[in-house]
């Protein structure tokens, strides 16, 4: 008896692996960066020449991801492209190491093709996966195991290469894309996703602190690197900018950055930067910079919510902005890259996060928010008293306003407000006359009566009485 690896394992390793189709793009980028690193190590490529090109062809429904990394030598190509979970990559040199990432595309297209060439060789290796057929084989009743299913659904060719002998590349081609809501065709979404997740550079013209951060990261994070990645020929950058858009039409500006090191005894787990903000509120989701992000090999681990649970309230994470880069190699992303593999290092990483960021910032954010709500109440009180004084000086605008202001002032008196002549104000508001003086000879009586009626209606029918007063002032052409 021999243990068997059934065909369903292919299902789990491909379509079942990633919870979102965009993640497979991340997997291909990860492989590309590893290949680029290898080419640089071997001396036939510089980081400035390196590039990853993502082309999305809406007309033909194709997506290709091509890099000018080391490629795969024609001698090893068959093994490397057809073996499953048998990567030759080393964990401390590469971002990917499990040998399953490239299968992510199987679930989202009809044909998946890998085309590659190593430098100083003449042969081009082409490996084609008939995804439709593979899915069929997995679904139907047969006795195929994983290996036989792969054999039946794949094709491997090597042909002579027409271009320059020096060329080296790897290209993943997905033909006839099929993804829910056509996410893999959504170019803007893909660009945003890559800008957040992939190891792309900061946008120096929009983000003044980019150089400061970059210099520090290159010093402190071993093997820190950024890559030129293009989507339909447009280079992608990280989304950070000096201006931070907050929810509710508010803005903040990054004043400076603070660097943080997660260190336990002699072990340095991670290093990162944190933007200095006024902590006025949640950062808008659309700006795609909110929340502290965790990155391994400069590729994001998890999403912007990964660290939410390490704050007193999850939403506090979205008040902050920054990146933490893992350093210790024992801090390993899990195969879905939505968190780390469980280990004492992961535990320590999160403990350090709680201690250094989660708890202290929870405290500060809560205090600031309490101060703001106190001030809001104070502002409201000031507005109320101003309104009352206006009514005393120039008359009230609607019967409802008079009633409401007297009620609100009485409530304010109960709260021991600092304004000490509230009693007098209440009395004088009670005595106040209407703004429109019916007894005066100025203006036509009927005209004034109509206007009075209009003001009554405006005040009565408005849900926000403050806005009603502003509107009435506009009608009356009184500056506020």
């Amino acid at each position, binding site marked *: 008896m021999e243990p068997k690896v059934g065909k369903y394992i292919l299902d789990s390793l491909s379509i079942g692996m990633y919870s979102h189709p965009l993640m497979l793009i991340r997997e291909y980028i990860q492989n590309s960066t590893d290949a680029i690193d290898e080419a640089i190590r071997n001396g036939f490529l510089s980081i400035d020449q390196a590039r990853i090109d993502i082309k999305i062809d809406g007309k033909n429904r194709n997506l290709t991801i091509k890099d000018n990394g080391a490629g795969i030598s024609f001698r090893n190509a068959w093994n490397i492209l057809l073996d499953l979970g048998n990567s030759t990559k080393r964990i401390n040199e590469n971002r990917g190491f499990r040998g399953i990432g490239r299968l992510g595309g199987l679930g989202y297209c009809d044909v998946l093709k890998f085309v590659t060439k190593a430098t100083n060789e003449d042969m081009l290796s082409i490996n084609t996966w008939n995804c439709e057929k593979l899915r069929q084989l997995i679904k139907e009743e047969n006795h195929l195991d994983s290996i036989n299913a792969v054999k039946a659904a794949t094709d491997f060719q090597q042909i002579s290469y027409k271009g320059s002998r020096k060329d080296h590349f790897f290209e993943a081609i997905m033909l006839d894309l099929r993804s829910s809501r056509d996410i893999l065709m959504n170019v803007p979404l893909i660009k945003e996703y890559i800008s957040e997740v992939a190891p792309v550079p900061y946008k120096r013209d929009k983000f003044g602190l980019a150089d400061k951060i970059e210099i520090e990261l290159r010093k402190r994070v071993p093997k820190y690197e950024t890559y030129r990645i293009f989507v339909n020929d447009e280079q992608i950058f990280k989304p950070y900018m000096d201006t931070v858009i907050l929810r509710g039409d508010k803005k903040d500006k990054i004043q400076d950055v603070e660097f943080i090191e997660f260190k336990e005894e002699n072990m340095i787990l991670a290093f990162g930067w944190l933007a200095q903000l006024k902590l006025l509120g949640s950062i808008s989701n659309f700006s795609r910079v909110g929340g502290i992000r965790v990155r391994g090999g400069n590729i994001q681990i998890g999403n912007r919510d990964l660290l939410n649970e*390490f704050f*007193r309230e999850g939403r506090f994470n979205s008040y902050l902005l920054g990146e933490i880069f893992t350093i210790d190699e024992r801090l390993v992303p899990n195969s879905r890259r939505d968190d780390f593999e469980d280990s004492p290092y992961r*535990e320590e990483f999160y*403990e350090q996060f*709680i201690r250094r960021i*989660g*708890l*202290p910032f*929870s405290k500060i954010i*809560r205090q600031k928010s309490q101060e703001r709500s106190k001030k809001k109440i104070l502002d409201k009180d000031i507005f109320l008293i101003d309104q009352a004084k206006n009514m005393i000086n120039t008359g009230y605008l609607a019967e409802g306003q008079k009633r409401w202001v007297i009620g609100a002032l009485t409530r304010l008196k109960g709260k021991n407000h600092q304004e000490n002549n509230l009693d007098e104000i209440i009395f004088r508001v009670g005595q106040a006359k209407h703004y429109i003086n019916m007894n005066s000879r100025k203006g036509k009586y009927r005209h004034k009566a109509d206007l009075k009626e209009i003001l009554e209606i405006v005040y009565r029918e408005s849900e926000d009485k403050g806005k009603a007063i502003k509107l009435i002032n506009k009608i009356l052409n009184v500056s506020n």
Partner: protein
Amino acid sequence: MNKKILLVEPAYESKYPPLGLMKISTYHRVLKNDDVTFVKGCSDKVRDEYWDRVYITTLFTYTWKETVKTINFYRDTLFSFARKIYVGGILASLMPNDLFNVTGIQPVVGLLNSTQKIDQDDDVIIDDLPPDYEILNQVDFKYINTDAYLGYATRGCPRNCAFCAVNKFEPQFVPYINVKEMIKMVIAQSGEKQNLLLMDNNILCSQYFDKIIDDIKAAGFIRGATFGKTKRRRIVDFNQGLDARLLNDSNVKKFSEIPLEPMRIAFDDIKLKGRYMNAVRLAHKYGQKNMSNYILYNYKDKPEDFYERLKINIRFNEEFKKDFEEGKGEKTTIYSFPMRYIPLDAKDRNMETENKYWNKRYLRGVQVILSVMKGPVMPGAQFFEQAFGRNVEEFKEILLMPDEFIRNRVKPGWQKIKNYTKRLMPYVKDWKNTYSKLEPEEISELIRVLSENDIGIIKKYYLETKNKNIKKLLNAHLDSRIIISSYRIK
């Protein structure tokens, strides 16, 4: 790096300082130089800080709800890092698995008498350390006996009474612990204390009894000893009570060498009447001034014998008072301290027991009488008879009254009114009058309706019954407050 340690006592009522936490504080604060914080209950203030370890103590099982709430609060405070939370104490030792199932934290069971229990990196036996009194200043909560050496001269109890939990959390009887040494360590760490509070569960089982008393004397607790410039009397208290069956002439005589105030003898069962009375007489013989004796009820006893046990103490008080006035001995005063039995696995105070003689109405009635006296039963006969009734029949009648009636039975200044009936408030007179008209089977019927002490049941029966007298008594239960206020208005 110094660790940040948080000690927590859930927000239940507790008279005595949390000795276990105090010892843990000595371990961390004094020995390891860690930063120790003590809080009572769920404190929002500590949530913004980082804690390396949290220790939560537990006490009675009936504080279950509060305890679980507290543990879960701190688990959440530590972002579910359960391994950093240590839960111990009595409840935790009695029901560790139940606690695990609702908190996900496996409690530390029993004493901290091994280094394995809380992942120590040294060989300190925490249970042997002196308590750290400093932490008590960190909370507003007022404990009693903070000016006392707190400790043990023995551990555990060789008996295995079914109503008692001691065997579960201190299964090993340790017959001797050096009290002198313990006191020395406390003095070195926290300075001198006036009193000595020993929480031994059955000191009389120790073959080293005489030696222990000599240790206590050597530490400065000789009868008549005073403390400080103001010469306050020093006292020794074995607050868990003494076993009446083991008291004899020689050990009572030995006890008389130390200022035992009060002596507490357990009178758990009417069957022990003979030996209990013998023990009290011995204490009297050797000049014991105050006694505060534990009266267990709702275990296997009946209300009748509960009353009798209280009455025995009252008779003793009368007798000793007379003796004293005739110059024939010490005026020994006995307070009775009724202790309601609650099953060892009860998660609240109202758990059913198997006792058929007591019911919820009776238990509630006793509770109301005791609450008027704030706990112990006074030694005076007049007071006792007024509170508990002149005989067992009257006692049971009182228990059936509405709570408000029990509480407000007599007129102000009743002590000056000679006639017993004239002392009573009119509505109580009324109640007694109606009650006296009931036939025995009607009394049983009334008890049946009231036994659950459930206003819904009473209301339902009130609407159904045709029996005028019962209806009237049930109405008093439904409208007791209105009845009392209407009398007050008159």
